[in-house]
């Protein structure tokens, strides 16, 4: 009997193989007829942009030229689905789950002729994710890390059927570059020129909260998106496909936000988000792009950072209670003493909660060892235990990044300079200056990248280069009771400078400043910096000038749509310019809408006794 069975099996093998080949051929023909290789869904799954895929890992492709030929890759994928594999998890069906399910749907696989494999590893992983809602997470800008000044984006899959209390356990999907310690300044070069590889990783959300909200002082915005269960499944299946895939990372245009959008595109390839961005992808723009889809935003939540929570608690206290907080932290006031027990329970709770937040803050940043503050924390917790639950309102979210203006800016202006009328055209690559409309951006923070200004005087038909700003980064972080950061700025480019005696040459300008800022309340911020500048150009004797001097200013958000600035600066260039260079500026910016504003400015600069005035009225469009 067994011999007969063996003979039958050997006889049938060629027939079976021929049958499989026939079915594969029919599937390939159907795929060609339907032009599935050019379908948006297929291109999204393979991350094609233009004529090539953005995945640089060879194993991601099954065809020899799969990276450049989507049709060939599709054919190779179909063939691979038929290939035997000792380990089911290593089979093409289980490695490329999203591809398999999409092709099965398009070509209506006959499971009798192409059996569907069980994929234990994928099944276990998918069940572990237990994905319910999809949330787009935006940690706001981090002023003291230049790249983080643009914010960041990642995803979170909340567990099915679980409420907000389970969010911290949820898996977060993050795209990041593999940067090694020790790269130092080389990291800048490598990141700008695609020398790093990036990949998707999954982390527990609580780690992201700890890093961004507790350590980097970044408020977090969470946007729950209305993707259907089928769309979420497609995203997760594709994430499984990408677990070993690497992409080339470019800081400006192939970064976390770009690849995140590309991941979302597999769910809705008919409305590709990633393809909207050509030259740069700034996280805030990516966020707005994602939320621009109709009816996609289900719910929005704000998660304040520890620092914000601490500042809010301090601001709600009177001076006496703030003094009590300081005394407790310095060991001069013991938790639970009669002095504190005499206070209303709400005030006691506020004091203890502020002390707790401060201890958490310093502990998270490693400024204090846990062993050092643990006794105080324990005492505070014990004293707090008998008091009512924390009834404080959360800090009011004031800078929803989804409300921010576009990061590029086009300007048209006119004015007068030293009595001569001019018109002006400017274009900025990114991102936000101190006077631009505030909603969506942190107060006192500015990044200007790549702005060119052209000017034409009424008396002169020529167009002059007024300035070319490579970058100008400003971080005016106010000091408070607990937090004493330095404020700083740094910039480089070319600009015209009044040197007196009718001279206003175009000079190279590299400058930086360090100082302090303070919050005045009611939207006011004062700052004082010590600036250092290196000027270069033919308009200066010896071709360069080094100078230092103070600068002070006031920024005021006078009304929801009105920003004002006053500043004054003095710089001494002792060896090359005669006298101290002075400058005064007053400006007002009125937001006309989310993406337009009108700016009136006046400035006076030059040397004592030889100064020029300049005024201007500019209309800006943000896009």
């Amino acid at each position, binding site marked *: 009997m067994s011999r007969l069975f063996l003979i039958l099996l050997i006889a049938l093998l060629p027939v079976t193989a021929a049958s499989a080949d026939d079915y594969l051929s029919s599937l390939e023909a159907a795929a060609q007829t339907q032009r599935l290789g050019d379908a948006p869904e297929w291109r999204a799954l393979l991350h094609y942009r233009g004529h090539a895929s953005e995945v640089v890992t060879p194993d991601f492709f099954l065809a020899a030229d799969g990276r450049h030929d989507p049709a060939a890759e599709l054919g190779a994928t179909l063939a691979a689905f038929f290939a035997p594999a000792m380990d089911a998890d290593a089979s093409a069906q289980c490695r490329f789950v999203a591809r398999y399910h999409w092709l099965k749907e398009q070509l209506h696989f006959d499971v009798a002729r192409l059996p569907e494999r069980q994929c234990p590893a994928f099944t*276990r*992983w998918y069940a*572990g*994710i237990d994905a319910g809602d999809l949330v787009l997470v935006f940690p706001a800008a*981090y002023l003291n*890390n*230049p*790249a983080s000044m643009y914010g*960041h984006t990642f995803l979170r899959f909340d567990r099915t059927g*679980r*409420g*907000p*209390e*389970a*969010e*911290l356990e949820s*898996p977060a999907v993050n795209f*990041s*570059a*593999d*940067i*090694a*310690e020790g790269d*130092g*300044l080389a*990291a*800048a070069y490598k*990141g700008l020129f695609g020398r790093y590889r*990036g990949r998707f*990783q*999954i982390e*527990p959300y*609580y*780690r*992201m909260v*700890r*890093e961004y909200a*507790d350590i980097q002082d970044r408020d977090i915005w969470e946007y729950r998106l209305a993707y259907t269960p089928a769309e979420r499944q497609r995203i997760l299946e594709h994430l499984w496909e990408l*677990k070993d895939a690497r992409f080339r990372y470019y800081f400006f245009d192939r*970064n976390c936000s770009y690849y995140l959008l590309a991941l979302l595109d597999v769910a809705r390839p008919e409305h590709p988000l990633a393809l909207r961005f050509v030259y740069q992808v700034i996280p805030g723009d990516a966020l707005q792009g994602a939320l621009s889809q109709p009816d996609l935003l289900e719910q929005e939540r704000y998660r304040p950072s520890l620092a914000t929570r601490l500042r809010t608690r301090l601001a709600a206290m009177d001076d006496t209670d703030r003094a009590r907080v300081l005394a407790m932290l310095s060991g001069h006031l013991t938790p639970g003493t009669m002095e504190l027990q005499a206070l209303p329970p709400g005030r006691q709770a506020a004091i*203890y909660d502020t002390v707790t*937040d401060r201890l*958490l803050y310093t*502990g*998270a940043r490693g400024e204090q060892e*846990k062993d050092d503050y643990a006794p105080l924390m324990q005492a505070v917790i*014990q004293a707090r235990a*008998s*008091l*009512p*639950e*924390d009834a404080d309102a959360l800090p009011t979210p004031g800078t929803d990044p989804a409300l921010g203006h576009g990061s590029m800016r086009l300007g048209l202006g006119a004015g007068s300079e030293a009595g001569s009328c001019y018109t002006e055209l400017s274009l900025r690559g990114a991102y936000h200056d101190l006077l631009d409309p505030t909603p969506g951006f942190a107060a006192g923070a500015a990044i200007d990248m790549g702005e060119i200004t052209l000017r034409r005087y009424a008396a002169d038909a020529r167009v002059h280069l007024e300035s070319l700003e490579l970058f100008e980064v400003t971080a005016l972080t106010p000091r408070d009771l607990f937090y004493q950061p330095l404020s700083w700025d*740094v910039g480089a480019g070319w600009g015209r400078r009044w040197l007196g005696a009718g001279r206003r040459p175009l000079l190279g300008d590299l400058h930086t400043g*360090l100082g302090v800022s303070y919050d005045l309340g009611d939207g006011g911020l004062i700052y004082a910096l*010590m600036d*250092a500048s290196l000027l270069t150009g033919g308009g200066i004797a010896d071709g360069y000038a*080094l*100078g230092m001097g103070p600068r002070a200013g006031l920024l005021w958000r006078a009304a929801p749509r009105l920003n004002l600035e006053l500043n004054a600066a003095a710089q001494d260039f*002792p*060896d090359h310019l005669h006298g101290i260079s002075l400058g005064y500026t007053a400006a007002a910016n009125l937001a006309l809408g989310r993406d337009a504003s009108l700016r009136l400015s006046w400035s006076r600069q030059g040397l004592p006794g030889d100064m020029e005035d300049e005024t201007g009225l500019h209309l800006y469009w943000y896009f």
Partner: protein
Amino acid sequence: MKRIAMVVGLSSLLTLVGCATLFGGGSHQKLTFDSAPEGATVFMNGQQLGVTPLNVDVEREKGVVFTFKKDGFNTASVVADTHLNPWFWGDVVAGSLLSTTIDTATNSSVKYSDDRYFVTLSPVGAGQDAAAKRNEVSSYIVTNYGAIGAELGAPLSSKPSSQGQHIVALADMVSLPGEDSDRLPTLTVLHELYTSTHSAPDFANAVLTKFGMN
């Protein structure tokens, strides 16, 4: 002289502005190693350092691998942290050693501060799910120890979910997720364990033992 001062001043300011975070620390670093369970022998690139809990001075160098060995448990290896938070790049998250749940790890490690590592060892023969659960709970505890303590300080009311996400998440990890009324007994136990221990590793070990994961 003034010119020299200007050059020095300008250079110093430029350095301070951007590069302060690039160059930090000396050639040695003091590290602390804890494990669940305790008593694991720690090796650095094959050289024995001691037994957990362990404070030790090590030389900073690239390519360091810490190995944790204990009889009856799978050996754990930890590649010293690639510091993914350099001056320039905001798209990276610092200090994460647990890379992805896609790669199901038998052991896990957490670098929960600049100089402290906590490693959860899994018993030889333990199922993958059980090991993953241990890792999840211990990593969560050492990462959020401060916040857990702060939230446990609030009175344990009949509505625990309003008290704080950190302790509710921990309660759901160690017992079956359920309604608020189901969490109160678990929270009470966690409160007792927290007040009877004095460090994150101790609390993690106590929780794992109490809830049958050690």
